[in-house]
């Protein structure tokens, strides 16, 4: 197995794919939006309960590849309880680690659990899979109900 593949499918990714966290619909959400990648068919709906500018609760539901599922699952774990400015910071970190072209020895320190997605950058075709849930989150926060990766 190539090193790149092991970087992509790290244990934490495979674990979140097999047992996605916070994967359910939320009937009393204050915000929700669906993210669709029409090229590959991945669909993820993100549900939020926003209270006093804070993510009180978050969940997701959808289907797709291991990367999009694990990324969504990780996202819900990371941002639950965060204030909106802190959510923005995490979103920026994800964007940064998906496009950076050098290995960062301080990755875990700097990126936290999101570092598990750093292997994606060697697979350009899969970057949209990793960012899909985050786009849906962004759309939900902006009051939109859907977003597709092809509108970027």
């Amino acid at each position, binding site marked *: 197995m190539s090193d790149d593949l092991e970087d992509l*499918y790290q244990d934490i990714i495979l674990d979140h794919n097999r047992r996605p966290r916070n994967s359910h619909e939320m009937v009393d959400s204050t915000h929700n939006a669906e993210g669709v990648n029409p090229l590959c*068919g991945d669909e993820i709906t993100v549900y939020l309960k926003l209270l006093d500018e804070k993510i009180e609760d978050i969940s997701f539901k959808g289907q797709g590849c291991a990367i999009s599922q694990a990324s969504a699952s990780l996202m819900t774990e990371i941002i639950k309880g965060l204030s909106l400015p802190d959510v923005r910071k995490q979103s920026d970190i994800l964007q940064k680690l998906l496009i950076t072209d050098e290995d960062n020895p301080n990755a875990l320190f700097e990126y936290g659990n999101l570092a598990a997605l750093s292997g994606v950058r060697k697979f350009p075709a899969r970057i949209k*899979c990793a960012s899909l849930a985050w786009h849906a989150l962004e759309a939900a926060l902006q009051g939109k109900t859907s977003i597709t990766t092809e509108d970027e």
Partner: protein
Amino acid sequence: MPDTPFEVEVVRRDFPILATQVREKKLCYLDNAASTQKPRAVIDRLQEFYSRENANIHRGVHHLGELATDAYHDARKTVAKFLNAKSDKQVIFTRGTTESINLVATSWGRANLQKGDQILLTAMEHHANIVPWQLIAEQTGAVIKVIPTNDRAELDLDAYDQLLGEHTRILAICHISNSLGTLNPIKEIIAKAKAMGVTTLVDGAQGAPHLGADVQDLNCDFYAFSGHKIYGPTGIGILYGNQEIMENMPPYQGGGDMIQRVSFEKTTYKGLPERFEAGTPNIAGAAGLAAAIKYLGQFNQADIKAHESALLEYALGQLEDIDGITLYTKAVARTGVVSFNLEGVHAHDIATILDREGVAIRAGNHCTQPLMKTLGVPATARTSFALYNTKEEIDTLAASIIKARQLFK
């Protein structure tokens, strides 16, 4: 007559890209339903055209203008012969199958469809043979009806008999399903439609490369295929049409080359085929497509078919034993494609892992979302074969799928 014996190892040497490597792994190209690789004869023809013959056609009285015009006309003759068309005039150059179908839906549709008319499609059509019809249905008030499939993803011919009725105006159907490899009995299906006075269109994007196409034998009114799926260049395709029907169709696009006389008061159009070829066409692409057809023509069609069928059956045999695999290619009559899923591993992850082994396949809905819905899956992994593929490549494929399975265990 074709006289070159078919030997796959010799054939492979004609395709330079097959000798390249993917991250130090041997390239194992199994995405031929998406696009085929090109033989040296096609690559050389493109280079030769641009090096020695390039100019615009039908305009220059100069030497190069004549060479380019000749190349373009010769290409049309080659395609007409390949299709067994009665006349070169019936062969229109387009950008590909998609544009060919859009041309018919738009031009024929505008002139022939009215409110309440029915357009008959099948559940296994590519989006290119669905969306153009939806667009014209919206404009004319025509209605789309769909022939369903059975649990082997074969067309339900009893349902077809029921659906074919007095309101049916056109039947548009693929020869081979690009997603599953189902081979439709189109000759029989067309005969029934013709008996009811229904116009017929065959999407031959997958059929032409693997089965050839005899439009007189099929007796279809329209036949569409793409250059790049038949070992030719991208950006060139063909629409064959019934001459009488096409002569009564309004132009599709307006512009240079398709007109007789233009004034701001009134413009008159040329006859076939120029009427449907506005603007400067893909001249080099046409020459390249003709080179591809000539390349294929050196072999016996039956030899190619036998080779590709043997690959398909070998692949089905190798794959069906893999733990957790579901095969979707189940039709009795089938060719060229194996579609599958692996329990617990999404098709995109399979494709990524296989790519690291040098194996190129397609993952996704294959531009057939309605068909995926009937299968109850969002996506499949698809391998598709061409004349240069080998059993060894299928062994590599099977071993790579097992690796994917292990990684996700």
